[in-house]
């Protein structure tokens, strides 16, 4: 596969999954969570070989906030200026649940199809 097509496919896949994991990371946090902490958690849990560019998180969070999926509050920090911390809204939770369902069924379907070519079924 030419490298530019591989890059494009990787970008498309990353964008969709990034939205899902960012919403999930915010949902599982017990308290409002700031951008750096989300980025750190996602980077720590990323599988080897999959690079997650932490800087892409912030425009994503802004889009999510504009669409009402997350809401932010400024929380004072001892380590520097006040930090913008995020929580999921009811709409965000609804979208996350729906996406999880979609992800699981897509995952099953893709694995089933891929099983036919590399024996991972």
């Amino acid at each position: 596969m030419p490298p530019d097509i591989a890059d494009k496919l990787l970008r498309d896949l990353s964008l969709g999954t990034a939205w899902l994991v960012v919403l999930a990371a915010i949902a599982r946090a017990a308290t409002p969570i700031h951008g750096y902490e989300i980025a750190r958690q996602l980077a720590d849990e990323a599988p080897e070989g999959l690079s997650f560019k932490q800087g892409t998180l912030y425009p994503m969070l802004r889009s999510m906030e504009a669409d009402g999926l997350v809401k932010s509050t400024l929380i004072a920090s001892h380590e520097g200026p006040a930090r913008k911390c995020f929580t999921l809204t009811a709409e965000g939770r609804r979208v996350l649940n729906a996406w999880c369902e979609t992800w699981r069924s897509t995952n099953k379907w893709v694995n089933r199809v891929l099983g036919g070519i590399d024996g991972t079924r």
Partner: protein
Amino acid sequence: MEHAESPSADKVVRSYLAQLGLELEGADAALRHDAIIDAEQHLRAAIAAGATAEMAVAEYGTPAEIARAYLDAEHEPRSWHITPATAATSNSSARAPVDVSAVSKHQRLRDIPIIGVWFDRRAWGAVVYFGAVGFVLSLAYFVWSVTIGSLAIGLAPILIGVPLVVLLLGSARAICLFEGKVVEFFLGVRMPRRTQPVQGADHIGFWQRIWCWLRDVRSWLSLGFLLGNFPVSVVTFAVTFTLAVTSLALVVIPVVHLLGHPIANVSGDDADIMFMGTQLVPDAAGDVWLTVPLAVASLAIGLALATGTLWLARGFGWVYGHVVQAIQVARPHPMNPPKIR
């Protein structure tokens, strides 16, 4: 552990921010500002948490990648909001997907030469802003600034003036942020989503923080804006209001005539009605009627004047909006290192 304040780490961060700024050159100033503030806060937090500056920068992404992410997020319609699974089960609270054909139709109307401005939301917003809202707000800002400023100067010898100066500068910054939201709503000029922290105000006490506020150029820019905005808004209000009312009158008068109503009713023998340089003679009942050529001319001039008013208001809005934006994105320490590819 490398600290964000260490000279080498600081140099790496500054260099990265400058490269990111260069990658976003030509993009909206507020978007550029947001990208830089996000990156700066993230990188400093990462370094404070123990990462080396180089590692923090590498994990953050190259300036080109991050610039692309910001530009994409700003310009791509987010139709992802309704997924296939949710579309089937969504209730009325879910937002409808973006209707691309309606958007392009509206865009086509706006692109019509000259009269396209009638379909431009920013032009109508500017007429409302400069013809009413902006004038009232600028008057309120001016009264507040002059009152507190005068008190601060008068009470300076007995030291009570000092907290008043701090109050004045703090309120000026808050008012500027509020004004930014108002301007974005009415004039459509994007304002920063991220508030820029006061430079050097981390890890310090209350009085040092106040001192940083006093030294921050944005505090004084905001105050200057509140004071200078009033005379500007008086002029823009007078021009916009006068033109809007005149054009409205020129359009409405022939419509009143066409609906079968006289444009005026006078009594007395020496009544002298002049309309667009033409003397109109009342009939026996004292009713004043337009002639057909006058009605057509009035309508045409009224529509042309309204179109000109919309263009002028939009122009005012563009300039004014970008001045407010420039105050909000002003950085106390400009960075100009060479571009590194």
